[in-house]
């Protein structure tokens, strides 16, 4: 991405020099999505009152924080030419596990967070081993893991949600509560010019996004992961430990998904069995929309973050224009299809000789 940015500074004439006839299309591929985003912002600001305010901006960020974090995890698996369908159920498993640790086992917030992160890493490890060692195709392995987790998280509570005062299968009553330091992860707001403005979850999203961007674009490990995604055999023959990087990619995906689950639990304050249904599709959509940003045509952290924001802005704007809630999935799907056309049809044309 850094390369791309430097190219932008000096590179428009260069691109024009290489393929003068295509410079219009080149421009559309590169900036089309960002221009569309700016257009949306302007449109909503003029069409609704209150859209262009700090509170509204923060609300958008908050609404995409969890899917954004999950999407950054999927980005890792996409980079190594894999796919992780189990992120949504990993997140809901973390939601249920944290509630179980806090409410049933009555342990503290730190144990709950640590248990969730460990579980996420373990799920990623199993996914990675299934894919690398037993050669199960990535989509199928993580689809299987998704089903397994959806079922597993219901077993300890016999399919019920977890809340203080619930009756356990052995007849006792759960006495634990969500401690304030845990709830703060989802509910605390930091002062930023305006008091109580920025939710902690948004800060976590931004920190993770920057870290992922740095790892993928600027470190050796990110470079090698992209190499694996481009040509796995060639990477192996260049001495890259392909198996290890793939497993690590799935572990990162699992850990980030469980962070998303923790934030969801902290926001809800209970282990709600029915929440998080949309997490998988929303976050995958964000990562795929990210392909179209700056004409990357490949998974990338910056694009993923923009993709998540794009969906958030669109939904917030439509909601403020009184579009009914049930049109949301349709809108998200339409955006995804347009983004995919951007990526594959337009850049495909550019790629041909």
């Amino acid at each position, binding site marked *: 991405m*850094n*390369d791309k940015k430097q*190219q932008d500074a000096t590179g428009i004439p*260069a691109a024009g*020099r*290489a*393929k*003068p*006839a*295509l410079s219009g299309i080149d421009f559309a591929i590169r900036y089309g999505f960002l221009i569309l985003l700016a257009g949306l912002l302007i449109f909503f600001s003029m069409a609704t009152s209150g859209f262009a305010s700090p509170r509204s901006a923060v609300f958008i960020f908050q609404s995409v924080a969890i899917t954004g974090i999950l999407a950054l995890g999927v980005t890792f698996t996409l980079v190594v030419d894999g796919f992780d369908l189990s992120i949504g159920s990993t997140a809901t498993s973390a939601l249920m596990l944290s509630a179980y640790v806090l409410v049933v086992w009555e342990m503290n917030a730190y144990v709950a967070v640590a248990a969730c992160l460990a579980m996420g890493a373990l799920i990623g490890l199993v996914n990675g081993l299934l894919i690398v060692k037993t050669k199960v195709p990535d989509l199928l392995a993580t689809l299987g893991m998704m089903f397994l987790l959806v079922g597993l998280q219901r077993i300890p509570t016999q399919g019920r949600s977890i809340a203080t005062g619930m009756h356990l299968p052995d007849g006792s009553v759960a006495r634990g509560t969500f401690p304030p330091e845990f709830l703060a992860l989802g509910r605390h707001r930091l002062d930023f010019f305006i008091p109580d403005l920025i939710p902690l979850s948004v800060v976590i999203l931004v920190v993770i996004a920057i870290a992922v961007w*740095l790892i993928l674009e*600027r*470190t*050796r490990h990110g*470079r*090698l992961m*992209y*190499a694996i*995604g*481009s*040509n796995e*055999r*060639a*990477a*192996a*023959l*260049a*001495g*890259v*430990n392909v198996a290890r990087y793939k497993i690590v990619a799935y572990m990162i995906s699992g850990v980030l998904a469980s962070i998303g689950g923790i934030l969801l639990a902290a926001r809800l304050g209970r282990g709600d069995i029915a929440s998080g249904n949309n997490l998988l599709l929303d976050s995958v959509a964000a990562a795929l929309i990210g392909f179209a940003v700056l004409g990357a045509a*490949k998974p990338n952290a910056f694009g993923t973050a923009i993709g998540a924001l794009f969906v958030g802005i669109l939904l917030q704007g439509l909601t403020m224009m009184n579009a009914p809630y049930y049109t949301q999935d349709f809108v998200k799907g339409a955006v995804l299809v347009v983004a995919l056309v951007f990526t594959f049809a337009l850049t495909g044309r550019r*790629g*041909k*000789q």
Partner: protein
Amino acid sequence: MTGNAIDIRDLTKAFGANRVLRGVNLSLPAGKVTVLMGANGAGKSTLVKVLSGVHRRDGGEIHLFGKPYDPVSPSAAMAQGVVTVHQSINDGVIPDLDVAANLMLDELARPGSGFFYNRRKVRAQAREIAARIGLDVDIARPVSELPLAERQLVAIARAMAHKPKLLILDEPTSSLSAAEAQRLFALVERLRDSGVAILYISHRMSDIRRLADRIISMRDGVIAGVFEETPLDYEGAVNAMLGHGLTSIELTVQPAGKTVLELRDMRLKPASRPFSLALRENEITAITGLVGAGKTLLANIIFGLERPHAGRMYLDGRPHEPASAGQAVQRGIFMCPKDRASNAVFADFDITRNITLPFVGRYAPFAAFINTRRERQKARQMIETLSIVCQSERDNIMTLSGGNQQKVMVARWLSEPPRVLVLDEPFQGVDIKARRDIGEKIRATAQARATLVLVSEMDEALEVADRIIVMSDHTIAGDHVNHQPDLDLILAQVAGNAAAPAA
């Protein structure tokens, strides 16, 4: 029937601003094998793709047996009797289907060929096709179980099923052994004698000498020379294709330094005869032999990808048993693998990233962020030393011609000093100019390392090596100094019918 099968007039084709065909004028007579020569990027592939209906032409006229010919798709081209066997084998066969279904594929794909798949009928017809061209494989076997060479023959047999009037073969022998190539040549000759016009594209002089009735040289998108008087002027054809005269390489055998990699009592396969081999500094050792003689297996063992059946290796005197390619690279054993498209090129990366990939850690001090400026500086330096033709070090690798892509692959492994450099078929699908550049660079940098070059083509070994080793049946069949070597003996050893070396 005599006369011209196809007449091409002022054919042009451009991709964006890149004018690939700039007015091609060409006639192919029926009943003749016309060999098309050209450096990478001369426009051969584009010409083939226009003729086979993959690309539409921009301008000019094509007449097929006097009638205008303008195929809109590969199947339209086939329907009119223009059949193409592409270089990449897997374009020609479907691995999961059996041989019979592959041979009959175009018939099955024809609209109106019936709804049900009549296996018995398909197999009977397929057997007939196979018999007609002398293809001896079990037609009930899935193509995925066949070795590469037989897949190629199936792809060619499938093309034959169309009763072609013009058959285009795009480097058909690049993955065949000599014996298999002989079968192909016999087939091509039989088709020629039955009046088919054949356009044969190859870089291999031995194929060309064997088959050509006429030679056409292409350069920069136009026909640079037509050679049809016997005896054919091969040198003239090469000159026309390159645009300048070639001098044969003057090679001085270098004195070998100390031993770097020693192989003792190696047995590659349980049944193969053990051999020992020492690779020394300042010495380029070429290993030649047929496909399947064990060259690549040996390279893979040295590089840690496979284990020998028996035997030991020593690197600078210490035991060498690499557990992985990564470990081999760490110890300074670098391998530039064959078949760059599937084994080496990162299509998503630019030239810089393709070059620095194995050593990218060296551009990231303290395991932190990659210093892209230093990385690109290195790439520019390698582009300069290997004279890679490109706009800048940030060009995507796929914008380069095949020869330049191969130079990038060699540059990757020359960008850090190796102890042992293994190059597996470094001249595969590379034009003569690039081949000379690569060979010169390999020789110029050989002082401080041992170099092993695996080639199937004798010419290539003679051009680059100080020492030529012949492999046959997974063992060493001959060891020659490349100073007026006995070519007949080498060829006999390659073919496996020389007595074992006395020593």
